[in-house]
């Protein structure tokens, strides 16, 4: 399931205009200053943003180009958006079960899968809370489980750990990594955290005002910072580097 992306989307002041690939089974990290176009790109791949030009292809199937627009639910692409949009009328468990059903499980299996996810997250206590009665970090973890439960061929996660504390973020990174490996799913992870990129991704892509300004293996991009932004990100890496290896045995 190789994802090939070439797209142009006009935004105020600049166009998002990029071209890149995500080879089957690999994970791409996407970084860049706020407003540089990261969410725009993953939205376009997921199908909730039209593209003005280019072509998005998944293993030869065209998902979108300037003329066609395959609807989101027929793309086998799953998205956890920056705003998780947990369904306000469903509790945590039901939100996850919705993902599982949307991914193809029947009612009973979806329910069982949701319960299992809640247990893996250690959130049994708040399983029947509606989103309005969840903490920010709990919401984000439920939404992540919902996206994983839908078992997409390509997983797009937009700032999935932003509201999590250090330990929860480590756990979730490990969980995502485990799932991606187990299922052989490709993924794109949008994040402001160098730790996320190191822990999860094979390749790293850095954007600025809609353009790719650096691209390559994660370590390498950090080792040779292409500009001030990349240098600043690299500087946030914790002292006892490389984290990525520590994190696999939390």
């Amino acid at each position: 399931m190789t994802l090939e992306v070439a797209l142009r989307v006009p935004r105020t002041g600049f166009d998002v205009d990029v071209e890149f690939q995500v080879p089957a089974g690999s994970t791409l990290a996407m970084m860049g200053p706020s407003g540089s176009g990261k969410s725009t790109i993953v939205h376009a791949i997921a199908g909730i943003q039209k593209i003005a030009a280019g072509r998005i292809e998944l293993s030869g199937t065209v998902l979108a180009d300037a003329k066609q627009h395959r609807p989101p639910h027929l793309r086998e692409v799953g998205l956890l958006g920056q705003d998780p949009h947990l369904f306000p009328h469903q509790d945590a468990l039901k939100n996850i079960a919705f993902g599982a059903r949307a991914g193809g499980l029947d009612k009973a299996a979806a329910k069982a899968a949701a319960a299992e996810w809640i247990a893996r997250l250690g959130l049994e206590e708040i399983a029947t809370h509606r989103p309005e009665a969840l903490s920010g970090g709990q919401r984000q973890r439920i939404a992540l489980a919902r996206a994983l439960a839908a078992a997409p061929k390509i997983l797009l996660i937009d700032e999935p750990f932003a509201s999590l504390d250090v330990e929860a973020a480590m756990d979730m990174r490990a969980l995502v990594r485990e799932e991606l490996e187990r299922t052989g799913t490709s993924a794109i992870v949008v994040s402001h955290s160098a730790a996320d990129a190191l822990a999860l991704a094979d390749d790293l892509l850095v954007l600025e005002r809609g353009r790719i300004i650096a691209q390559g293996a994660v370590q390498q991009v950090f080792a040779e910072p292409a500009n001030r932004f990349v240098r600043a990100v690299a500087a946030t890496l914790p002292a006892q580097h490389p984290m990525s290896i520590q994190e696999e045995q939390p």
Partner: protein
Amino acid sequence: MASDTGVRVPGFAIAPALLGVGLLVLPLLALITRASWSTLVDDATSPQALSALWLSLRTGVAATVLCVLLGVPLAVLMARSPARIAQLLRALIAVPLVLPPMVGGVALLFLFGRTSPIGQFIDSLWGITLPFSTAAVVIAQSFVALPFLVLSVEGSLRAAGAGYEQAAATLGAGRWMVLTRITLPLAAPGLVAGVILCFARAIGEFGATALFAGNAPGITQTMPLAIYTAFNGAGTGRDSAVALSLLLLATAVVVLLLARAWRPGALK
């Protein structure tokens, strides 16, 4: 955000709100005080009254169901249409509201009557004529009640926005699943309002029914027609019209309060 300290209603809203309640409720109280209590029970439990009430309930429910089946898809369509088209549809749909119901009844007669192409077509197909049948009552009620359902559901769908639907679609949920599990539950408050308006309007319908369906006891004589008939009779007829009205009111209140049971347990 925590929800147990909802922003309280501004104090200055209370006076007009009470005035509003007064405008709606005081006339009803006036009606009740003028009721002739000695004959009230007899009037309200006469076989004809009960048969009219039963017919009203059956046709009212049938019309509401029909309106939900036709109106909810229409509301969804409108809520997801470009502003310009939605605008046009909204005006188009509001138009039957403007029509005095009796004219609506005439229009329905013109459309389905035996002189019309549709009437003749239905006749040749199934050998039935719609007007003056119980089916005609349901059609007349649906004609006047449908706009209420559509417009209030549409308003609520717009307020709920498309973000959650998109999230559901990116999880792989098809259109039916999105509609039934996300869109409609989120629009529940408007749906509730719409169904209440629709049912209430349907069982209160008089003018269109009188013309299109006629006034045959047991077949097309709903409560409002029974009330009208009683009202037109001189003398004590007026008392029994009031009695029948109170019976209809009481029934409506009970139905609306029972409706709580099925209220989709959605957003507060």
